[in-house]
C-alpha cells in the first residue's frame, strides 16, 4: 500500500526531499515507519521527532492506504 511521507526542517535536508510516496507493507504501524525512515536516512537526534498521521500529531496507529505522515523536528530559531 502507498503512503505519502512529508519531511520538515532539518529532516527534509537530511533526506534530500520534502515529500515522497512510499510503498509499505499492509498494516505497518507509525512506530515501524518511523524506525524505517530514521534508519534509511540516518536521521540524527531522532528521539525528538514527532509524527503526524493525517494531520494528527502523537498518534500510534496502523497505517492505511493513502495516509499522509509528517515527520516534524523541533526547531528554535527566531
Amino acid at each position, binding site marked *: 500500500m502507498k503512503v505519502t511521507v512529508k519531511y*520538515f*526542517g*532539518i529532516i527534509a535536508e537530511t533526506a534530500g526531499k*520534502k515529500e515522497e510516496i512510499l510503498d509499505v507493507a499492509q498494516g505497518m504501524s507509525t512506530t515501524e515507519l518511523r524506525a524505517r525512515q530514521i534508519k534509511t536516512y540516518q536521521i*540524527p*537526534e531522532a*528521539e*525528538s521527532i*514527532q509524527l*503526524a498521521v493525517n*494531520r*494528527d*500529531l*502523537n*498518534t500510534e496507529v496502523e497505517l492505511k492506504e493513502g495516509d499522509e505522515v*509528517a515527520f*516534524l*523536528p*523541533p*526547531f*528554535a*530559531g*527566531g
Partner: protein
Amino acid sequence: MRYDRQIKLDEVGSSGQEKLRNASVLIVGVGGLGCPAAQYLTGAGVGKIGLVDHDKVSITNLHRQVLYDEFDVGRPKALVAKVKLQRLNREIELVAIEEALTMENAEKLFNQYDLIIDGTDNFETKYLINDACILTGKAWIYASIYKNEGQLSVFNYQNGPSYRCLFPKTTRQNVSCEATGVLGVTPGLLGMLQAAEALKIILNVGNVLSGKLKLMNILYGTEQVLNIQKRQEEIEKIKNEGIIPIRIDCELKDTGKTYLDVREDFEQPKVNSEKVIHIPLGKLKDRLKEIPDKEEVLVFCQSGKRSQEAVKMLQKDFGLRNLKNVEGGIEKIIDG
C-alpha cells in the same frame, strides 16, 4: 480617533479597544520575532508591553529586526525598542527589561502580564517559558524558525496543550537563525502572526491557534495545520515539580586541547567538557589567574569576534602569548 480604523471592525469596536487598553503583554526576546510583534501591538494600543532582552543590537540584526537602525548598533535592544515604540504610541506603557529570562525571574515577570509572546531563539528558553506559563497560569504564543520554515502555536490557553505536549523530548540541534541563515521576512511574518494571536486572545474573537500547530514554508508558499494532542502528564509534571531546566550540551571535536569560552553564562550551546574554562569577556581581567599561561589555549565565543578581542587584549595588556582565536566561533570546535 487614533484607533478609528480598527474600532470600525465589528470584532473590535470601542469595547474591544478598551480591552486592548487594559491588556498587558510580555515579549521575551525583541529580535526577529519580537520586533514586529511589539510594533503591531504598540500600534494597536495594547496598554502595557514588557520587552525582555539582554542582547545588544548588532549590524547583522538589521536585515530582519527593522525596528532598529544603524545608529542603534551596540545599544541594548530592550531600551532601544522601548524608545522607538514609545514614539509610535505615547499612550501606552512600555517596560524595558534588560535581562535574560531565567528560572529566577520568569515567574515573577510573567505574573505582571496577561499574556506572553515567545520571541526567543533557543530551546532552553522555550521550555522555560512553557514551564513558567504553566506555573503562573498564562497562555503563551510560540513561534520558531528553521531557515525558510516556521512553526506557530498558542500554548497553555484555556487548558489547552503545552509545548511539552508537542515536544516532550528536545534535541541538541539548536540551530539559530545566525547559524543557518534566514530571510528577514520569515521571522517578520511569524512575529506578526504572533501579534495577531495576541489580539484575538485579548479581544476574544476568532479561533485561537491553541491545540494546533501551524507550519509555514515561506519559500514554497505552503501551509499546514496539525492537531496537537494534550499530554496531561507533561503538564502535571511541571505543576508538581516546578520548572525543569533544559540544558543543551554539546561535545568538543578535539578534547586534547584547552579552551577558553568568553561567552556570557546564558549563551548556548554549553560545551560539556573539563577542557573548557569559562570566563565571560568582561570578567577576563579580574579572573586572569584562571587562564593557563603554559599550554596553547583556544579562545572561542559565538562568532569569533569577541574571542578575537579577548586574545588581542590579553596579549597586549597582559603579555599572554599562548592564546589562539577560534575563527568562526563555537560551531568550528563542536561536534554535529
